[in-house]
């Protein structure tokens, strides 16, 4: 069964995206060179706002309560004042009607006067200083008229005083009633306010909570979602570092840096995996190469042996022909070895525009012996004049070799493999390389899993389950996709899509 391959593939251990110390430093600075606005600070700020609002409302309530207490106390005093004035007037009437004692009336007036004096400021605030002064003068006038009334027995004189006395008395009473009523209205208004303010406070609190809650949760949730996307991306093998997207840094920035150091480690491990996989592929290929190498070696050996045995019997021309064969067969051996060595040599990953046709041809040549030994046929359908792709030569070969070796493993004798390369008709700027076989196919429930690391359907010791995962990692790094299409009994096609390089290939490769 086809599936995860295990034939390795690998690269020379240095992935193109491997970061150097300099870029680490750059990434680190990108994160740290921003103003700090930590989540802790945001939470503290929000709760401080709540607390400040509570303090404000509590202080206001305390002030309101003491104000109301003062007003109620004053109402009592005002009530007393009015009562004193009314008492005075009652005694005044009694005096006029029945000729009773006027001293009681005077006494009550004196009390009222002293009350007005002590509460003058408060009354002034309620009814206005002018009115208070007017009232004080009325009270004074009334008082002096009353005294005058008490000190004279002259009837005419009394008759002249009484109407003025009554007028002043009525004014004082109505004035006192006015400010008592005004103060009652005040107290009512304040009580109403004290009832309403809690509701206003609740409304403001709700608003503040909604605003602060939205702000906090937005900054938390959006960032969390961003990190969820990162983990998904990393899980799919994209190990490119996270870059800052906000203008300030917080605890998430530290998390992002931790992610970046994790992906650096993952990249390093991936490189090791790619390398070890390539070694495995080389191991497989070596068997085929050894086989293939024996042909030119045998030709050389036979030619040289015959030349030695028959030296005297051969003509000059025959000798020359045999020596030419020895030379050409040695060159053939050299080509075989060189192709494998090119693939096996450890070298720095070098990203450059590559002629995909050549890469595919050389990969096909690498597995040619495996294909022959398994008694399979391999056909190539390569479109002419394909644009170049950007990538590392060894890594791309590793992917193609891996896919072809998988097909070799999957096919019974007489099976056939077709390797094709053409422009992608569905996606602009992409090339597709297909490795198609007419083997048993991959059951649908395995198709999702074959790219998972360590998933293999090959027998124990035959597959590591890393081939396809490593291949997918390599193709992802080059900005491409590796997909599978398969139906049981209908064969399997692995599709590699690669972006064509944006640079004019002549300049880049030249």
């Amino acid at each position, binding site marked *: 069964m086809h599936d995860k391959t295990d034939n390795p593939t690998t690269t020379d251990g240095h992935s193109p995206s491997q970061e150097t110390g300099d870029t680490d430093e750059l990434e680190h600075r990108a994160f740290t060179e921003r103003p700090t606005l930590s989540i802790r600070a945001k939470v503290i700020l929000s709760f401080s706002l709540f607390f400040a609002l509570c303090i404000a409302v509590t202080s206001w309530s305390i002030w309101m309560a003491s104000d109301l207490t003062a007003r109620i106390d004053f109402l009592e005093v005002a009530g007393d004042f009015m009562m004193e004035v009314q008492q005075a007037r009652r005694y005044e009437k009694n005096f006029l009607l029945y000729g009773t004692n006027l001293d009681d009336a005077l006494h009550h007036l004196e009390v009222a006067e002293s009350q007005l004096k002590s509460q003058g400021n408060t009354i002034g605030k309620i009814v206005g200083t002018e009115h208070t002064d007017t009232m004080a003068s009325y009270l004074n006038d009334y008082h002096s008229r009353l005294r005058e009334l008490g000190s004279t027995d002259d009837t005419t004189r009394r008759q002249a005083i009484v109407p003025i006395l009554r007028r002043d008395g009525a004014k004082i009473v109505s004035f006192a009633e006015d400010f008592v009523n005004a103060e009652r209205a005040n107290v009512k208004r304040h009580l109403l306010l004290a009832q309403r303010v809690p509701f206003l406070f609740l409304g403001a609190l709700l608003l503040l909570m909604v605003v602060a809650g939205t702000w906090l949760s937005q900054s938390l949730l959006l960032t969390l979602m961003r990190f969820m996307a990162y983990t998904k991306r990393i899980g799919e093998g994209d190990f490119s570092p996270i870059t800052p997207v906000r203008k300030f840094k917080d605890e998430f920035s530290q998390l992002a840096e931790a992610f970046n150091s994790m992906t650096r480690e993952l990249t390093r491990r991936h490189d090791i995996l790619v390398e070890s996989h390539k070694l495995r592929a080389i191991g497989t290929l070596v*068997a085929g190469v*050894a*086989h*293939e190498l*024996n*042909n030119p*070696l*045998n*030709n*050389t*050996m*036979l*030619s040289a*042996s*015959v030349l030695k*045995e*028959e030296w005297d019997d051969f003509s000059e021309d025959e000798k020359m022909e*045999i020596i030419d*064969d020895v030379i050409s*067969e040695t060159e053939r051996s050299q080509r075989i070895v060189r192709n494998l060595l090119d693939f096996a040599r450890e070298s720095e990953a070098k990203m450059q525009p590559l002629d995909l046709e050549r890469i595919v041809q050389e990969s096909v040549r690498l597995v040619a012996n495996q294909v*022959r*030994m398994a*008694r399979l046929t391999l056909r190539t359908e390569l479109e002419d004049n394909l644009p170049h792709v950007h990538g590392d030569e060894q890594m791309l070969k590793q992917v193609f070799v891996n896919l072809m070796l998988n097909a070799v493993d999957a096919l019974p004798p007489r099976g056939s493999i077709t390797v094709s390369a053409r422009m992608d008709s569905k996606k602009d700027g992409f090339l597709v390389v297909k490795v198609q076989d007419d083997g048993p196919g991959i059951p649908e429930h395995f198709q999702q899993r074959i790219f998972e690391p360590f998933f293999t359907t090959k027998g124990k010791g035959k597959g590591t389950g890393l081939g396809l995962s490593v291949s997918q990692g390599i193709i992802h790094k080059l900005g491409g996709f590796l997909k599978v299409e398969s139906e049981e009994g209908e064969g399997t096609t692995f599709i590699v899509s690669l972006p064509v390089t944006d640079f004019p290939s002549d300049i880049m490769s030249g």
Partner: protein
Amino acid sequence: MNPKDLRIMIIDDERIVGKRLKPAIEKTGSTVEIFTDGETALNRFQEQPFDIVVTDIRMDEMDGIEVLERVLALSPRTKVIIITGYATVEVAREALSKGAFDFIAKPFKPGDLRVIINRAGRELES
């Protein structure tokens, strides 16, 4: 006993193998015909059987094992010698179990093959 007058067929898709082996084997007095594919060789074999068939095991169209089976089907007394490019126990076991006389691994010298042919010739005569 010298394996004189043996009719020997050599099949190898490497052209040089036949070209060099033909004169080297004919030195012993045998007749050698060389082929580069199994189909042509078998057609020739059907016209006129050979005493010894030397065939490479790995060839594109018809491989050495098939040649072995069809030759033995046509002529059970014929000795079939298998040339392998990459000697493994499995290949040797398969060849021998299917009736091959012997096998020789590349690269070899003409003398190595002559020794096996001589041995086959003696067995044919006995």
